[in-house]
């Protein structure tokens, strides 16, 4: 047997894993070949060195680390269980017709309750509105508590009656046609003009000009617009379904009046 072949079998020979005939051949060769015997000796030394490697000790806190990992995982699994329970429930709801309609109905009711709650939360700032014009800047002041009942009565009691007043069809409507007619009725200037006024529309739908922010060059144009605003039919502004006073800034710009 040649050295190359024997060297390839040394590992298995050392572990007695070679077949008998092959092991005999290797054994015979080793008796006569000092190089191969030396290699076998080195292999034995290697194996002994590996076998004699001392065991290492895990640190004392090893168990604590594992426990920590497990307790964290338990918390996560609690969340996962909750999530899967919800998914299971939702799947059942979606696939059961009756439950699906009931859930939709409950969802719709919950949505309505939610919006009512939101609007109720936003309402109180308007409850103190006493009806007069607000101060500069348009911010309404909240009245003292003794006036709250009165205001509530005002807010919930009268506006319904006020809203009952119908807007008559004979009332002039502010629209393009109305403005065109108005423009035709005046024939004094032939240049661009601008009118800007503050108007108050009350809960009965009546409007009056409160202030003039920008005067036109022709004063008669202002009186025409003021008449127009006061004679037009206005739909009262509403706040949460209730009629309220409203302040408007009306600006008519680029007015071109034909001669």
């Amino acid at each position, binding site marked *: 047997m040649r050295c190359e072949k024997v060297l*390839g079998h040394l*590992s*298995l020979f050392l*572990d007695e*894993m070679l077949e008998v005939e092959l092991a005999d051949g290797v054994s015979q060769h080793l008796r006569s070949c000092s190089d191969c015997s030396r*290699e076998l000796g*080195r*292999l034995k*030394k*290697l*194996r002994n*060195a*590996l*076998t004699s*490697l*001392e*065991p*290492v*000790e*895990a*640190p004392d806190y*090893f*168990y604590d*680390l*594992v426990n920590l*990992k*497990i307790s964290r*995982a*338990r918390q996560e699994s609690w969340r996962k269980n909750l999530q899967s329970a919800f998914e299971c429930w939702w799947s059942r709801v979606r696939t059961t017709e009756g439950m699906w309609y009931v859930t939709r109905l409950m969802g719709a009711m919950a949505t309505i309750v939610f919006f009512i709650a939101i609007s109720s939360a936003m309402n109180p700032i308007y409850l103190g509105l006493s009806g007069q014009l607000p101060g500069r800047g348009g911010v309404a002041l909240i009245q003292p508590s003794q006036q709250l009942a009165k205001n509530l009565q005002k807010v919930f009691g009268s506006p319904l009656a006020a809203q009952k007043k119908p807007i008559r069809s004979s009332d002039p409507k502010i629209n393009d046609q109305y403005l065109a007619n108005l423009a035709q009725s005046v024939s004094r200037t032939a240049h661009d003009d601008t009118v800007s006024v503050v108007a108050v529309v009350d809960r009965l739908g009546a409007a009056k000009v409160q202030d003039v922010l920008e005067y036109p060059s022709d004063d008669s144009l202002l009186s025409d617009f003021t008449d127009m605003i006061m004679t037009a039919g206005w739909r009262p502004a509403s706040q949460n379904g209730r009629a309220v006073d409203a302040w408007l800034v009306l600006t008519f710009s680029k007015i071109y009046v034909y001669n």
Partner: protein
Amino acid sequence: MNTGFPDELALNRYEENCLAMDQEHSHAPAAEVFEEIFNRYQSMVFNLTFRILGDREEALDVSQEVFFSVFRKLHHFRGESSLKTWIYRITINRASNRCRWWNRLRRRGTISLDEHLSKDDSRTLSDSLESAGNTPEQDLVLQEQRLEIERSLRRLPVQQRVAVIMRDVEGLSYDEIAGLLQVSLGTVKSRIARGREELKRRLNGTLG
């Protein structure tokens, strides 16, 4: 360091108790049962991961994963092999995967080749001096030899390293290794022979 493993292939009474308790609590093993399992196998798991990975911190990390995996999967364990075999297999898989992960990082050049290999000289000179029966010089030589062997082991390809460790450090038979790694006997023979050859070549000066 031969543990006699896996001559215990038949489930012993303790493992049967574990299984029984586990089946009663179908989703998580009782804390006491798990603690028993941990106490019994923690040394085996830590040593095996340390030999394969060659780094204490890495070994600790992977050992944690092993026991966490055992904890989570114990209720799936059907007793087809012994509990020890099952844990052993998990350990080898986890440690081998971690090795491959390190190798991938090295190939990408993310870390230097020796960055985590040289951290493990955990045994101090005083430890070796405490060894009974040897002169300090002999202890020093043995210590150097041990370090050199561990260093060379870590440089073997993962599959060869695992096979050599299982055979020469853990003392398992070829059949047992083949069963645990789920490869043929020929593959095991080949891996061990190549691994030893490579080690012998690397330890040329150390082995004399």
